């Protein structure tokens, strides 16, 4: 029976509740975490370099999570880093999602030349892994935050385009689209008012899959020095700066690492749950 389930309601496993809780906590920390610390995130202190976290040593120190090699408070840096990482991940993923979905919708709706052109662009993008593009671009231009966002934003649009095109094609076979056409609704009305909301779930699930990937991508770019540039910071950058000090300043990698890992994990779990709640056949195993 092809009974479709309602998009909301039903019981939620504890793992998903926990994940949602963590994501909420993460967002709160990113927004307000800076106020937990008396320091500015750029404020360096010559005398307090690589202070261990007071939270663990129990020492009387204002550095609850310790300091980095420049004597900057890790807590406030994590908050700012979380903020920037979140912006990079969400904005980057959004650019991909909006741009890719729109093109996918057009390709699915219009077919013909528009489709061929878009799908060729998809092929081109698919043949160029982001890190290669990033290295190429950075060899040519100076790194900037906007450039980084654009690069990250344009990595995964092809995934959305493929997915949305396939979903649009299958939505087109649905009776409600035919009914709308017979009613004389405009193409814009059909695709934006009816098809798009119905494939939105698929985009949403894809979003939850690509968001952690984007976070990890930013981490990898930071490791190569291609990510967010100082004095701005990101979780990936904090972690990357701490990587040589794993043996004597574990907090520099452990805290941002745990945050990245838990965020990626939570979003993945939420995505899995969403996928299970929605029609799984619509999301997986489809091919353009």
């Amino acid at each position, binding site marked *: 029976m092809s009974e*479709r389930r309602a998009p909301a309601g039903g019981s939620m496993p504890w793992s998903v509740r926990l994940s949602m809780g963590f994501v909420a906590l993460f967002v709160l920390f990113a927004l307000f975490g800076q106020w937990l610390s008396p320091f500015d995130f750029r404020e360096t202190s010559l005398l307090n370099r690589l202070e261990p976290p007071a939270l663990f040593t129990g020492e009387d120190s204002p550095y609850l999570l310790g300091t980095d090699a420049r004597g900057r408070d890790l807590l406030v840096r994590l908050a700012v880093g979380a903020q920037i990482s979140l912006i990079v991940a969400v904005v980057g993923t959004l650019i991909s999602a909006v741009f890719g979905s729109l093109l996918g919708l057009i390709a699915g709706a219009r077919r013909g030349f528009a489709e061929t052109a878009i799908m060729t662009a998809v092929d081109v993008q698919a043949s160029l892994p982001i890190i290669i593009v990033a290295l190429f671009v950075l060899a040519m231009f100076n790194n900037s935050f906007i450039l980084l966002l654009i690069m990250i934003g344009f990595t995964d649009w092809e995934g959305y385009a493929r997915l949305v095109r396939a979903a649009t094609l299958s939505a087109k076979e649905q*009776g*409600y689209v035919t*009914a709308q056409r017979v009613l004389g609704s405009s193409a814009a009305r059909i695709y934006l008012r*009816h098809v798009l909301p119905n494939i939105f779930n698929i985009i949403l699930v894809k979003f939850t899959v690509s968001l952690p990937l984007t976070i990890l991508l930013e981490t990898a770019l930071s490791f190569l020095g291609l990510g967010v540039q100082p004095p701005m910071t990101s979780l990936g950058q904090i972690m990357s700066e701490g990587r040589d000090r794993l043996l004597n300043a574990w907090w520099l990698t452990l805290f941002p690492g745990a945050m990245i890992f838990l965020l990626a994990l939570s979003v993945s779990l939420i995505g899995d749950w969403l996928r299970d709640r929605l029609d799984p056949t619509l999301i997986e195993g489809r091919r353009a």
Partner: protein
Amino acid sequence: MTSVLDISNLTVALPEGGDRPFAVSDLSLSVGAGQCVCLVGESGSGKSVSAQAILGTLPRALKRSGGRISFLGKDLPLEDKAAMQTLRGGRIGMIFQEPSASLDPVMRVGAQLDELLSVHGVASRQERRRRIRELFAAVRLPDPERIYAAYPHQLSGGQAQRIVIAMALALEPALLIADEPTTALDVTTQAEILKLIKDLQTRSGAGLLFITHDLGVVADIADQVLVMQEGKVVEEGTRDAVFSRPTHPYTIKLLKAIPRRQARPEREAGPLVLEAEGIHLTYRPSAGFLKRREIVAVEDVSITLRRGQVHGIVGESGSGKSSLVRCILKLETMDAGRLMIGGEDAGQWRKGMPKPMRKRLQIVLQDPYSALDPRQKIGDAIAEAARVHGASGAEAAAKARELLGMVNLPPQAYERFPHEFSGGQRQRICIARALATDPEILIADEAISALDVSIQAQILKLFRDLQERLGFAMLFVTHDLRVASAICDDITVMWKGRVVEQGRVDDVFDRPRHDYTRQLLDAIPDKGSFATSGLSHLEATP
């Protein structure tokens, strides 16, 4: 007559929280050698679960909670996995509803048959080859070499079902279980397959447990009939007893729901609202690099429709009836022909159809599940149809409410979403939406074929009532001659994209001129009782 299968008090529990505690409750039946027992019921009645229980292949969520099943006089070793495995496909053969879905899509057909034989102990390769050849002959498959090497998707529905039957019979089973084996097939194919199953069963002397929702089919093949409703047997008896002296109201309801020829009052001919002449449509799908195939979908079809008239278009899958509808709706651009809609020449519109014309022509589609936008309240869906054509928000809402009443849905339905409705209710919503623009022509494209029998009858009645009340012209597309005969004034029979017969319903049914029409009429299940118009003795039963 020796008994092949004896079931006593079989009960299968549903998981907790379901709408009823048992999928099957207290089922007892017995199938003798050479005997055909039909299990009849609508979807969800528990008939397929019964078959799974016998085979020991119940889904994990379902548990057999009581009853005994014995096979050839001995209890089925349901707990002994290995023994059951040998029995399945060996002494018990099974035929499924969707023939192509019951074959592995990525394995060649021959290999699947070969595997079956090999698993069941036919060790020699030559022997297996020989047996397969015999089976192909027995199920009357043409071109065995090609089919042996073919993948399931390369077979027609009928061919695939013959393969499935061949598999079921491959090891000369004592019991054959057929679960809706013809539902997915065309009428003529259905007739052939039914005959084939019956013949082979009779010849082999196996017992046949036949599961179906179609009483017509039951009438054709059953010796013994059990009617199931919500997991319980409500009526049991020989074929003749059940058909002529049904006792349970549900059985009567089912029997009454079988569409039958209706005498249609002779009405004065209204003005011409649709005139199609010499329509041609060819699809040209891309077939890889620089290649295009040509598929002629509609060839030289002419049709006329008058106000107040119901014109049926009958044909099997691939006959071009849906393509014709798409041409008329200008969803496809025809290659040749003249199309006049409400006196306007459709040829003047290069692409699509101008909006004011659209409202004059509406459609109700086959699948009520996909025809509604799942994210739109149904009231809004109906109102939207009116709004697209210029009604104000308030007007449209009022219209939607009125229409909901007209299709017998409660006013509260307005605020609900499609998933809250059953298939039949959804089809009512679709009809309401189609009527929201006050169309002159309503096209029903297989509009009732996805529904259960009893629902079919209701929707058919609704169409009839609305049509008489509102007086629109109707193009009724169906593969089912019985349905067509129940509502149409005129009828067009299509075959391979062409019109083979056109005329008044009675003329076509009583005096078919074309072979194909005759074939179709022959294929109607339970044609004996179909010929008489209506079961008069049932009409009297309360």
